[in-house]
């Protein structure tokens, strides 16, 4: 059934409004492309894209075995990686509960000339996985078993 010409025209207007709004949002997003990102990954910091001495955020994974804690203060040093580059972070203060090696992290602070990131705030970035502890234990065990079997197979 054909649409009434007047209604068809109004439908076109609605489609037009939507297209213009989408275009505006698209241009805005394009212009602000870098600024909408909450943090710089280590690769961009190492390649010099992140400004030195300015308040910025860096994000990535806390490298396994990289956390060094001071014995007499709350000072901590750890390495943040995006698996293509690494940045050393220094921080003094209280860490969120979910902070751990191998977990995601977003730190805010300043990048120094020597390439060390001096953080004033450390936030934990958790992933989208949710499971009961027993399931997590079972997964870790089966992964360990598989690794063991693979080792035997290679021998």
């Amino acid at each position: 059934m054909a649409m009434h010409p007047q209604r068809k025209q109004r439908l076109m207007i609605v489609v037009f409004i939507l297209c213009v709004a989408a275009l505006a949002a698209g241009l805005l997003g394009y212009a602000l492309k870098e600024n909408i990102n909450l943090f710089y990954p280590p690769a961009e910091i190492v390649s010099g894209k992140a400004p030195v001495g300015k308040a910025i955020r860096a994000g990535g994974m806390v490298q396994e075995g990289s956390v060094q804690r001071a014995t007499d203060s709350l000072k901590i040093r750890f390495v943040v990686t995006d698996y293509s580059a690494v940045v050393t972070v220094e921080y003094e203060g209280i860490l969120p509960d979910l902070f751990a090696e191998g977990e995601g992290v977003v730190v805010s602070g300043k990048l120094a000339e020597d390439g060390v990131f001096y953080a004033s705030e450390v936030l934990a970035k958790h992933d989208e996985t949710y499971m009961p502890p027993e399931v997590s234990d079972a997964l870790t065990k089966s992964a360990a078993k598989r690794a063991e079997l693979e080792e035997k197979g290679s021998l």
Partner: protein
Amino acid sequence: MSIWTTFHKWGSPRWFYQFSGRLLPWLGGLSLLLLIGGAVWGLALVPPDYKQGNSFRIIYVHVPASAVAMGAYMMMAIAGAIHLIWRMKLAAMVMKAIAPIGASLTFLALLTGAVWGKPTWGTWWVWDARITSVLILFFLYLGVIALHQAFENREAAAKACAVLVIVGAVNIPIIYWSVEWWYSLHQPASIRFIGESSIHPTMLRPLMATMSGMYLFFAWAMLLFTRTEILDRERNTRWVQDIVCSGDKKPESRSVL
């Protein structure tokens, strides 16, 4: 019966009022059942998360509120478009009814997100793409409510709101994909339409219960608000006066006794 006859039937406020009246108790009852059942299931019976412990349980409020807040906006935008194109009065009433419900759900999503963010991330608030775009959604809802109040003339108000709502609809895909397009603190979606979800089935099932409960609650509240709007707008018609008069009879008969 052609699709257009159905469409025009749906456009009749009187038919809508009668039909929704029969639907209301079912929607309300079922939503209450699912929300309470899902909440007890999720808060008391499901095991804690392997990393977040008990704080993950806020998911059973946060995710349904966020999802329905976005779905409600899409419905409001479609109602706005239908009103602009076909001048259907009922669509304008639905659009007006959705705004306060959507605003409340978005506020709930922001609030529960902040309460969840403090123990897990270590902060109540961060200006990342996901959180900021949801805040914009909240302001859009408030804008629609304010714009409705600003006009004396109902037709002008509905037209202006419809345009605002349609323009704001571009925010919905931005919210949805913000966690994929930009580096954000908020994690990507756990429930996937294609492929396996990254939330364990034991935790997902109660979430599905509160999620569908929240959708039904929205449908219930939306119908209720629309019905109030219908009665207000059609107060000079015979059928509304009949309903109001028959409602008045009860106290009168009591006073006689």
